[in-house]
């Protein structure tokens, strides 16, 4: 067994040895160890280099407040930087390394920074690297970043799997120390649904390292009993190894669970609680004295925890330096565990108990009214300089200094919604104000440090919660415990130190930095934090803030209560971004939507494109085609010459029903819909209330009270929400209902001169002759027993229809259409050919509906009804929105027919030097026109429609496009529209 492992005691399992490696050296620990306790049991204290000065650092604490022992953990290829050795459970094969050193921890050449300490004092980078500015990015910042910092990401993807879950409860108890346990149990007995969250793997808090008597039994026995009862109650959920890291509004919280051997390694819990109790305990406070950062300087409670819970002796000769009664209790406990205490140094002159007798019992020297003025040893404490009550110095050989400077309630979570902590003279630290309503602190988190008070607080909080939630007549639960002394006399710093005294170990902030900041006027705690970096980083000042603010108060002549403290914000502890993403990353980043005939399209070899969440067939290459343009040109030509079919199921579709359906549509479209005849279809344009174009689509009327409208794929959800708003909020007087039918109808565009023949084959008994079913008609019918809808409308400019079946029959309809179309040479076409066809016809689509265009800009000015109110009506009439000099839609053709056009290119006067000041507009959509055999484009051009025939310079510096184009009408094919009516 390792040299510093105690032969007996502790909560480790000596029958389960675990191998691990640190900085390439193999060690052994036991199940139940943390990485820190295993390192200590192996005599390894020097585990880190500090942030700025690269000074050797050890393990300060035994919990989540750890500022120094930050290590990098290997997870396969990925490395997790800044993990805490003190909360990382040991497992077989764990591989960890130290960070922020080069080339090694032991020989760190960056420690040279320590020689330049004067330059690195508070605010150094605000002062030192001021000039010349150009050097900042190239030289200074990389230099500083290499020299200073915490762990680094190795840029490998994080392969860990993150789960997420939700949970609801009546009472959320954060922390399972004595107060939390008492509260959870009393609340559960009263019939509340209780969620108990503990960051440790074991319940018990301080009871895991201390021995007390509760209800007449040893505290360990009491703990077992409580745990068993909680486990037996179905209304109690216990989450261990779980850190509650954020409080949000209205009773919502978030917590992160670490899972040892799961498919997922972490789980993010989103919690909703009716009441919440903060039983997070308190963090012990270090004392600021020269050399207090050397490996071997630890919190007294940590030395105690390592000895009693983990059976790990911190050293051979332990000195306790305490200004608290709890430090004395720790000393006794350490001694009882089998470690040797050589001295207890207590700056206080007196205490309420016999300190000399305690020291005699431990075989330790007592230094009353004394303090530590210096530490000898750089990579490990070797000896200390003690100044006694008379002022004379002593040198004492010791390898561990166990420090106890007081206790700070762990109230971070209580500040997340803005409650500002207040100073308590009783405990010499900050506590939550009584109006921090979203959490009720109890026990040590409330500054009530004795065990009896903690248990009492727990039971009281449970009773209050039960009463508030209507559970009355519950028997009171009372726990009793032994009495203990909890007095503290703070010693904020040792003034006669002969070397650097650190306030914030994580950020290398010294007492000198704080007095410097105060001298330079940074006397508010928030300024102090930003100027010195006090309390920043991974630990957010859990062990440093209060000391720092006390020193600021002293340096600036303020009262500490007046100086105040900062507001902690979420997260309370670092959380990987992956935990928030959960499964939603990479290909699962968002859900994927498939159209009803997706498999059919796959069978046809479609290439798919992401359109929002949808997968849409972009084109269907056939054998011998190597280039997308080849496929797309073939598809578009097939529509112009024969017939093609395109899946348009992704269009937004909405059923509008009721006596006032027409009136609602009149209110949302610029053109009137209420006078549309049943069986007819009309194009519709919607504006936003600010007068800009929102969306367009078709409106079909099936009966007096039944309309059916379509929206663009991209705007489906937005238009539905818009209709909800218009119907529910602006026009509640209308008797009309809307129902989304996007998912219900599989819809296919059947376009081309042979489309009627194809459909006639599918529906032989239906009369769809031009006379009976002309352009812009709609009907409902049935096909093999299922409902079918047929619309005659055209986006391509050809004779065309859209045919729709309920989505679960979409695949069958698609296959039937292709069977019927075989003899007509039917061709499937994708979104690219769809785009080519609409650009040839000059139809505005998503690229033109950019949110910056008006009806006038897009050539729809004539649609604007002047007789009635509708959304956007008044604002669309503003002079600036109807100004002919605006960028308006035109067509473009290249002067050189070989020239390729690209969208996004700008249009400039010929001969002018390229500059935004002479910009005449830009290209929105381009296509290679199979009908014209050259590239064509739609563009928004200043006063465009009045400049047809003019030439402009086509300028695309990004892709190297440069040439001349001629402005033309945007309709390139069949300008008189004969084909659609054929």
């Amino acid at each position, binding site marked *: 067994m390792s040299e510093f492992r105690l032969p007996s005691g502790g909560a480790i399992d000596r029958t389960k040895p675990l191998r691990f490696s640190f900085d390439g050296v193999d060690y052994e620990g036991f199940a139940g160890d943390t990485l820190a306790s295993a390192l200590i049991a192996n005599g390894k204290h020097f585990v880190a280099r500090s942030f700025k000065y690269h000074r050797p650092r050890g393990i300060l604490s035994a919990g989540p407040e750890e500022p120094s022992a930050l290590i990098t953990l290997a997870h396969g290829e990925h490395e997790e930087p800044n993990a805490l050795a003190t909360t990382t459970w040991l497992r077989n094969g764990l591989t960890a390394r130290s960070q922020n050193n080069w080339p090694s921890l032991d020989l760190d050449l960056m420690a040279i920074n320590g020689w330049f300490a004067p330059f690195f004092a508070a605010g150094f980078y605000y002062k030192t690297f001021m000039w010349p500015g150009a050097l900042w990015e190239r030289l200074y910042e990389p230099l500083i970043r290499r020299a200073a910092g915490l762990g680094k990401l190795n840029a490998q993807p994080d392969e860990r799997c993150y789960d997420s879950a939700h949970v609801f409860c009546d009472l959320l108890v954060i922390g399972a120390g004595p107060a939390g346990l008492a509260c959870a149990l009393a609340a559960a007995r009263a019939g509340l649904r209780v969620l108990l969250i503990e960051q440790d793997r074991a319940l018990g808090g301080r009871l895991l390292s201390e021995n007390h008597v509760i209800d007449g039994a040893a505290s360990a026995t009491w703990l077992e009993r409580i745990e068993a009862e909680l486990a037996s109650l179905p209304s109690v959920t216990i989450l261990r190894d779980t850190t509650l890291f954020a409080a949000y509004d*209205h009773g919502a919280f978030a917590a992160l669970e670490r899972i040892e051997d799961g498919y997922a390694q972490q789980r993010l819990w*989103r919690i909703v609680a009716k009441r919440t109790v903060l039983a997070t305990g308190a963090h012990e406070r270090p004392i600021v004295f020269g050399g207090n950062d050397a490996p071997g300087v630890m919190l007294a409670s940590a030395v105690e925890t390592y000895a009693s819970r983990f059976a790990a002796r911190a050293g051979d000769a332990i000195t306790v330096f305490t200004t608290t009664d709890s430090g004395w209790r720790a000393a006794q406990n350490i001694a009882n565990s089998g470690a040797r205490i050589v001295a207890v140094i207590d700056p206080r002159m007196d205490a309420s108990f016999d300190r000399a007798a305690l020291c005699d019992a431990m075989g330790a020297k007592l230094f009353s009214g004394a303090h530590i003025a210096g530490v000898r040893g750089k990579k490990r404490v070797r000896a200390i300089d003690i100044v006694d009550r008379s002022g004379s110095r002593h040198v004492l050989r010791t390898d561990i200094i166990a420090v106890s400077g007081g206790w700070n309630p762990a109230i971070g979570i209580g500040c997340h*919604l803005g409650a500002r902590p207040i100073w308590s003279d009783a405990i010499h630290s900050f506590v939550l104000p009584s109006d921090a309503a979203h959490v009720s602190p109890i026990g040590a988190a409330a500054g009530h440090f004795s065990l009896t008070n903690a248990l009492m607080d727990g039971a009281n909080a449970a009773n209050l919660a039960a009463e508030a939630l209507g559970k009355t007549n519950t028997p009171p639960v009372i726990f009793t415990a032994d009495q203990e002394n909890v007095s503290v006399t703070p010693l904020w710093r040792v003034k006669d130190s002969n070397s650097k005294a650190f306030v914030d170990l994580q950020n290398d902030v010294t007492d000198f930095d704080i007095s410097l900041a105060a001298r330079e006027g940074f006397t508010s705690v928030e300024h102090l934090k930003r100027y010195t970096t006090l309390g920043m980083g991974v630990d957010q000042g859990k062990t440093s803030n209060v000391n720092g603010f006390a020193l600021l108060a002293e340096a600036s002549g303020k009262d500490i209560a007046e100086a105040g403290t900062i507001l902690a914000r979420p997260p309370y502890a670092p959380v990987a971004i992956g935990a928030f993403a959960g499964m939603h990353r990479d290909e699962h980043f968002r859900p994927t939507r498939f159209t009803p005939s997706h498999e059919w399209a796959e069978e046809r070899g479609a290439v798919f494109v992401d359109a929002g969440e949808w997968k849409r067939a972009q084109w269907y290459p056939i054998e011998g085609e190597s280039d997308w343009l080849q496929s797309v040109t073939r598809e578009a030509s097939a529509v112009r010459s024969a017939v093609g079919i395109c899946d348009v199921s992704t269009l937004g579709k909405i059923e509008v029903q009721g006596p006032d359906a027409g009136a609602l549509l009149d209110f949302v479209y610029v053109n009137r819909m209420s006078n549309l005849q049943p069986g007819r279809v009309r194009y519709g344009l919607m504006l936003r209330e600010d007068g800009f174009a929102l969306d367009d689509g078709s409106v079909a009327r099936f009966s007096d009270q039944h309309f059916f409208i379509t929206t663009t794929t991209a705007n489906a*959800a937005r238009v539905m929400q818009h209709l909800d708003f218009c119907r529910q*909020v602006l026009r509640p007087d209308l008797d009309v209902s809307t129902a989304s039918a996007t998912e219900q109808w599989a819809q296919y565009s059947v376009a081309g001169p042979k489309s009627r023949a194809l459909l006639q084959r599918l529906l032989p008994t239906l009369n769809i002759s031009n006379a009976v079913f002309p352009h812009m008609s709609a009907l409902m019918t049935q096909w093999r027993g299922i409902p079918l809808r047929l619309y005659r409308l055209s986006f391509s400019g050809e004779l065309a229809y859209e045919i729709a079946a309920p989505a679960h029959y979409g695949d069958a309809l698609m296959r039937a259409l292709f069977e019927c179309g075989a003899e007509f040479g039917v061709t499937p076409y994708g979104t690219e050919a769809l785009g080519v066809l609409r650009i040839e016809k000059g139809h505005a689509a998503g690229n033109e509906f950019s949110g910056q265009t008006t009806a006038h800009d897009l050539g729809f000015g004539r649609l604007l009804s002047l007789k009635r109110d509708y959304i956007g*009506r*008044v*604002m669309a009439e*503003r002079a600036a929105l109807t100004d002919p000099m605006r960028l308006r839609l035109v067509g473009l053709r290249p002067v050189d027919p070989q020239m390729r056009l690209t969208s996004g290119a700008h249009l400039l006067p010929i001969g002018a030097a390229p500059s935004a000041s002479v910009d005449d507009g830009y290209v929105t959509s381009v296509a290679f026109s199979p009908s014209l055999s050259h590239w064509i484009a739609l563009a928004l051009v200043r006063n465009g429609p009045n400049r047809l025939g003019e030439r402009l310079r086509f300028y695309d510096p990004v892709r190297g496009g440069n040439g001349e184009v001629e402005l033309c009408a945007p309709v390139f094919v069949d300008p008189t529209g004969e084909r659609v009516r054929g």
Partner: protein
Amino acid sequence: MRIPCPHCGARDAQEFAYRGDAAPSRPDLDSGQAAFADYVYLRDNPAGHIQEYWHHTQGCRAWLIVTRDTRTHAIFSARFAGERGE
């Protein structure tokens, strides 16, 4: 953040879409451009109570008017926007 939907009960804010200040009401057609410009663009920014539109997009699809304190995020009430109160 939890929004107490009058139809569905308290739900996480992620189910909702936010629209903004519910105080301006849409002017009549003949009120003129200035009135519409106020309606479309001008918003108060009170420190304290504000009424706001929220749409329960991933729930009952009702538009709500939620009364919230901008300083504390406390929510006092939520009602169907169609039932214009006060």
